[in-house]
């Protein structure tokens, strides 16, 4: 029995992620579900910080916890008249379909995780410098991601225009 602090923290975070993921999908109240999801995202950010990848952790916090969850809460408050009412139980067939999908997804993920040969890290240990992240995002050579970055920004632009179009159509 020799568990280091790192492992303790990791298992604690993993337990939080697992517990709150289950709570997110099983709770009967919409807003609680969003809150549990927030905890899952916090714990995920915690794992990034543990991996010394502070940039991704901060992005996780600001985009997901600070942005997406707030959009969720906003949309729940704005659209659902009965945000405080409990949801009704799902039909058995739907529960079954969901379970099958979950098991299949877990299986694929496990298979990929176990079968993938993880190479040694290309980066030196310690925090990933922001400069490296920046050049990787803005470069065009191998292991650099300018094209996906721009494609995603075009996708977002399309989303914004679509949203405005839907909103303007009375």
């Amino acid at each position: 029995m020799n568990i280091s602090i790192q492992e303790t923290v990791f298992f604690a975070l993993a337990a939080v992620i697992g517990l709150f993921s289950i709570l997110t999908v099983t709770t009967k109240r919409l807003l609680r579900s969003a809150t549990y999801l927030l905890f899952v995202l916090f714990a995920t950010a915690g794992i990034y910080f543990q991996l010394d990848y502070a940039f991704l952790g901060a992005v996780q916090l600001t985009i997901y916890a600070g942005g997406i969850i707030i959009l969720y809460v906003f949309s729940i408050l704005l659209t659902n008249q009965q945000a405080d009412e409990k949801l009704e139980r799902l039909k058995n067939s739907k529960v079954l379909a969901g379970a099958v999908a979950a098991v299949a997804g877990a299986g694929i993920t496990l298979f990929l995780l176990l079968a993938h040969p993880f190479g040694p890290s290309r980066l030196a240990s310690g925090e990933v410098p922001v400069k490296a992240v920046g050049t990787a995002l803005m470069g065009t050579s191998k292991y650099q991601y300018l094209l996906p970055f721009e494609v995603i920004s075009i996708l977002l632009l399309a989303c914004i225009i679509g949203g405005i179009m839907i909103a303007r159509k009375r």
Partner: protein
Amino acid sequence: MFDFSIITRWIDQLLRGVMPDAAATVVECVLIGLALLLGYAVIALALIYVERKVCAWFQCRLGPNRVGPFGLLQSVADMIKMLIKEIIEIKHVDKFLFGLAPYIVIIASVTAFACLPFGRGLQVLDFNVGIFFLIAVSSIGIVGILLAGWASNNKYSLIGAMRSGAQMISYELSIGLSILTMVVLSGTLQVSGIVEGQVDGWYLFKGHLPAVIAFVVYLVAGTAETNRGPFDLPEADSELTAGYHTEYSGMHFGFFYLAEYLNMFIVAGVAATLFLGGWMPLHVPGWAGFNEVMDYIPSIAWFFGKVGVMIFVIMWFKWTFPRLRIDQLLRLEWKYLLPINLLNLLLMVIVVVYKLHF
């Protein structure tokens, strides 16, 4: 200039001498947490006192002057009152979310507080994305406010929370962009790096015009971000009683109250760090004697002095300007601050690329 890391290193070695590394780390975390919370509470008490005094002076009054000399113990007395007050349970609310909301707000605030550089070697969290991390955690507070407003089961609270959400999301853009402008100038996101970069002059002077514009925009957006001053629509005592914390009592309300004041401190602290050099003394390149004299003032005094000035300016806003309407608020952000900010960012990039800064 005294380096506080001597003390922290000494404590570190002392602890590692008597216990294994892992235990020492845990003990250090607990110690740092305690120190942070203590500093947080003391600063909040001081700020509440200062706010009441400054508010009174702006209104030609004297402010609290009964409890203790010059009313200095007033906020301590308030704190004791707050601590022993009953936490009222509201019927028909989601108790879990109702209880959770103040904690989310206060945790976000404390975490952002931990990123501030209080003095040379006196900084708790110093990631290489420090200033970005600070914005990230401070944005979590909005979730707490939204949950508080919704869980209160009160339409005024909900309106306050929605206003707060819209306002904070909008103004976060301006804060982010003005901080980005300064990051372009400094070339680093790390808080300690930003402070070290101002050893030969503060960025407000080094970056001249774009830095001054960014400074003003940051102050306006920061005031809005803390739900204060002319931007206090989420609370709007006269319309919404107290907005999202109407239904809270006792220490739960105390958490919102503390977080509000500490958010002001954090905004002021970030302004001091980015524009006024954090704990860095006023250095003028070429004036060696002057710089030497300035170095004798301890770094922590420099930091708190600058933050104090910034806090005074934010309070000055609050007690001068009337409250904005929600449409005016959003127009100010989207039609004025944001375009100015984007142009300013461009200007700063030009200044940096052509080395036009000092």
